[in-house]
């Protein structure tokens, strides 16, 4: 009995030590000295809660009974960890970006923040985990009794478990509910767990070393003993080997406590990289000495000794009390760390998905009224922790800590593994729907309960022996351990195969048949493509809510300081001073996510929904969810259109640029031309006026001649300026036309008279009667054109007996007047430029024109709605004047 007292004292001291560690870690984290607390090593060690007392004590028992099969429990998680890149990384990313608080929260969040799903997952988790907690209580109790060396009364038995449960509840409440935001790490708890992980590893390895070298005498003899033992030959059922490996792999992902440390407490995704090799290494170290301990135990311990306790009883039997104490502490650590984290994880789920929704709905619309919701949340969480531990204790009490508990580990695994299809389907398959997840979970859970959980209590607890043997109501195909008449399977494999396959089948089929809500689609896209878009599009439409209402609510959940900081930073990012930002959908998303860290996604969604009135999914949100192919196609179409537009614009720009360059050249040419044209007459005027001024001795005749030249040049200048003015007026379109009716003949008569055709050697041939065509136009301007053409012919026609033929015709309703002379015509190279300003054919200055005549003609014809063009190939210079509208006008 003295031994027991020492043990109790050591245990209490150890617990106190854990309290101090947790307290210091929390303290350090609060002061921001938590760098080393958040190292990948601590993360990896915290994962070791996978190894519970079931591992610590049970693995040896397992090995003693079934050989190497126990290894599957560690090989499965190793596969998952080594494949972290594939699945865990995504899970952790989603957990962080969505502020997930538990596995129930993740699944509910993925499937449209459905609380009913969360409730189902929570129930599964509680039902699956409670026996497991009971198992931990039992193992510690058994270990204590082994130490005491006597079978104690069942009252003392229960009292130990009760004290243990109460102590664990206290620890968990103290360190597990300090932070409300589950996304903040429970630094104290994690640190304590890490310490416990080291202790249990050390303990097991120490016992292993003692057994191998202290008792057996080295590796060789141990191998020899193994070969001699009952488990000498490789004997595993292939179904169990693969099935258990799958089950333990699934459990690593779906056990609430594993999800808590893997995803929720994860500080940095890169820690996963370290854990991917370090955690399998830890598992390997934990399982390395299991077989030697089992074999040596079988050899040395008396017949009928419980192999589950070899780890403890072997050192005890050898008189190694200190080692046995360490071993006890190892088992104690395994049990307590598991219970603490499981209690935290379960209480978060129960509180967020069951207690809070009930509380909120009982408060009705008054959820906005004053009162700190945080207290309610914390209280509900603390009560949930106590509730979970109480459940575990009652379970232990009810089953009397019998042998039935030994199998509970795998049963528990299989229970929580029912969430695997919904979990994996949720993060890898966008087509998965809420209805599918619900159907799969419920059917899986029911089958698991029927084929595995309830029969595990043995006959006459849930099922009578008759039901087990012949099925309910004599329906033999419903026998719990031989569904649909398939008997002869291992019961565990039987239950696993049926529950998982039907679960997955219902999940897939119901997902395919049902139609997801917009919110589900949105969440689905965000979960499945979490690496593509980490930010999520807005879901809340701007409602009638005031920022103040939101602040009031947020303060009650996040706490005044945090809520105000959040609102202030948002306001600052919007460029507003003060605490009340614009209620943008983005802000609501952020707020909801922050709150989800405290009360879970579904509750946070519901609370904001209460204030905002309704959640809506905008068309843009849905567009964002639209199939990527469509998005990519849309995008490439847009790109194509854009590039086509660019090409078009470039072409236009280039054309415009060319035109501008041309115009600039024209302008330069025009300027130099005009200065030249002005300069020539000015030069001669100046020269002759200087002669007149200086040369007083000039004869009168010479004087007259010079004055005449000056006069001519002045006239030429005037004419040039008149022409320029005329051209400028015409080009600017400022000319006012003096429209009137008349015949083309009379206009030609007028033009010939003005051009001085009477006195010119050039003979002019006309069309006679055909000229008697009435037209309506600006006849004076038209005459100006004709004068120009006639005088040009007079000037430039180089024939010996010059003849100008003026022919008037009607072609397709247009009046066409051709002026054709019999000279040598205009060279082809010049034909294109004769209508340009200052262009003159050849170098003849003799004619005295400035080269503006034809340019003016062209402008006039343009104004009159007609055109003038050079007509090549007529045996001389030939100009065609076309007047399209003139005839019609005249007819009116």
């Amino acid at each position: 009995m003295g031994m027991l007292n020492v043990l109790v004292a050591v245990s209490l001291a150890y617990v106190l030590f854990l309290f101090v560690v947790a307290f210091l870690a929390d303290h350090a984290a609060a002061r921001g000295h938590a760098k080393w607390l958040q190292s990948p090593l601590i993360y990896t060690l915290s994962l070791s809660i996978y190894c519970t007392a079931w591992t610590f004590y049970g693995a040896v028992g397992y090995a003693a009974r079934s050989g190497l099969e126990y290894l599957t429990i560690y090989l499965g998680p190793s596969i998952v960890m080594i494949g972290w890149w594939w699945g865990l990384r995504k899970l952790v990313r989603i957990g962080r970006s969505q502020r997930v608080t538990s596995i129930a929260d993740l699944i509910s969040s993925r499937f449209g923040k459905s609380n009913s799903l969360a409730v189902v997952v929570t129930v599964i988790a509680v039902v699956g985990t409670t026996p497991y907690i009971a198992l931990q209580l039992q193992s510690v109790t058994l270990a204590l009794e082994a130490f005491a060396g006597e079978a104690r009364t069942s009252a003392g038995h229960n009292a130990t478990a009760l004290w243990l449960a109460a102590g664990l509840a206290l620890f968990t409440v103290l360190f597990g509910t300090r932070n409300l935001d589950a996304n903040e790490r429970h630094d104290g708890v994690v640190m304590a767990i890490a310490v416990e992980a080291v202790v249990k590893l050390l303990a097991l390895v120490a016992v292993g070393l003692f057994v191998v070298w202290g008792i057996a005498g080295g590796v060789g003899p141990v191998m020899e003993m193994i070969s001699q033992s009952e488990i000498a030959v490789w004997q595993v059922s292939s179904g169990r080997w693969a099935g258990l490996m799958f089950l333990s792999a699934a459990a690593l992902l779906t056990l609430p406590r594993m999800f808590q440390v893997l995803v929720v407490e994860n500080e940095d995704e890169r820690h996963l990289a370290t854990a991917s090799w370090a955690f399998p290494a830890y598992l390997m170290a934990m399982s390395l000495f299991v077989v030697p301990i089992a074999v040596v135990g079988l050899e040395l311990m008396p017949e009928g000794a419980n192999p589950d306790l070899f780890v403890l009883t072997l050192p005890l039997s050898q008189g190694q009390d200190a080692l046995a104490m360490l071993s006890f502490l190892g088992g104690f650590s395994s049990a307590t760390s598991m219970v603490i984290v499981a209690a935290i994880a379960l209480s978060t789920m129960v509180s967020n998905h069951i207690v809070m929704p009930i509380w909120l709905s009982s408060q009705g619309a008054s959820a906005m009224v004053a009162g700190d919701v945080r207290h309610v949340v914390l209280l509900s969480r603390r009560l949930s922790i106590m509730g979970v531990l109480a459940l575990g204790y009652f379970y232990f009490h009810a089953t009397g800590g019998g042998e039935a508990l030994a199998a509970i580990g795998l049963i528990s695994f299989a229970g929580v593994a029912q969430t695997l299809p919904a979990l994996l389907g949720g993060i890898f398959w966008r087509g998965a729907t809420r209805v599918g997840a619900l159907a799969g979970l419920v059917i899986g859970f029911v089958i698991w309960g029927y084929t595995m959980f309830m029969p595990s209590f043995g006959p006459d607890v849930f099922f009578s022996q008759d039901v087990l043997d012949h099925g309910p109501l004599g329906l033999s195909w419903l026998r719990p351990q031989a569904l649909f008449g398939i008997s002869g399977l291992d019961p565990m494999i039987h239950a696993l195969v049926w529950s998982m396959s039907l679960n997955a089948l219902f999940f897939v089929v119901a997902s395919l048949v049902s139609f997801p809500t917009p919110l589900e689609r949105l969440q689905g896209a965000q979960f499945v493509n979490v690496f593509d878009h980490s930010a999520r599009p807005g879901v809340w439409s701007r409602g009638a809510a005031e920022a103040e209402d939101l602040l009031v609510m947020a303060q009650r959940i996040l706490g005044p300081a945090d809520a105000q900081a959040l609102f202030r930073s948002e306001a600052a990012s919007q460029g507003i001073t003060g605490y009340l930002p614009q209620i943008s959908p983005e802000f609501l998303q952020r707020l909801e996510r922050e709150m989800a860290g405290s009360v879970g996604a579904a509750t946070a969604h519901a609370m904001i929904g209460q204030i905002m009135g309704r959640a809506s999914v905008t068309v843009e949100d849905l567009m964002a969810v639209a199939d990527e192919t469509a998005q990519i196609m849309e995008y490439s179409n847009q790109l194509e259109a854009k590039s086509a537009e660019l090409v078009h614009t470039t072409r236009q720009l280039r054309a415009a640029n060319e035109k501008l360059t041309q115009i600039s050249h024209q302008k330069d040419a025009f300027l130099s031309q005009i200065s030249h044209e002005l300069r020539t007459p000015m030069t001669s005027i100046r020269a002759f006026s200087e002669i007149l001024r200086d040369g007083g001795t000039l004869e009168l005749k010479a004087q007259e001649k010079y004055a005449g030249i000056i006069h001519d040049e002045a006239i030429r200048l005037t004419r040039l300026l008149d022409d320029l003015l005329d051209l400028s007026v015409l080009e600017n379109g400022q000319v006012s036309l003096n429209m009137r009716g008349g015949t083309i003949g009379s206009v030609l008569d007028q033009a010939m008279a003005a051009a001085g055709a009477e006195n010119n050697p050039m003979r002019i041939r006309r069309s006679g009667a055909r000229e008697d065509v009435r037209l309506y136009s600006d006849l004076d301007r038209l005459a100006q054109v004709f004068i120009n053409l006639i005088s040009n012919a007079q000037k430039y026609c180089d024939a010996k007996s010059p003849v100008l033929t003026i022919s008037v015709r009607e072609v397709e309703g247009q009046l066409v007047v051709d002026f054709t002379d019999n000279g040598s015509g205009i060279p082809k190279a010049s034909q294109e430029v004769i209508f340009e300003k200052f262009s003159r054919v050849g170098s003849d200055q003799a004619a005295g024109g400035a080269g503006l005549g034809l340019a003016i003609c062209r402008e006039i014809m343009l104004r009159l709605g007609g055109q003038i063009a050079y007509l090549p190939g007529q045996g001389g210079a030939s100009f065609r004047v076309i007047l399209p509208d003139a005839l019609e006008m005249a007819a009116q």
Partner: protein
Amino acid sequence: MDAARVAPVITAFLFCFPLLWVGREDVPTTFAIIYLFSVWLLLIVGAYFLSRRLRDMPGRTDRTRR
């Protein structure tokens, strides 16, 4: 990265390999222990080097914003 994707498949295969011995009477447990633990150790070492490569990969632009 592709190696990381294949890793769990290889691991699962190697761990399931002992299933081929089922039904044979001449495979001693000691051999199975040695096989399983050496494969395990090998995979851990492999995962260690793999994780170093992956952790230092430049493609970390997709980190979550907070």
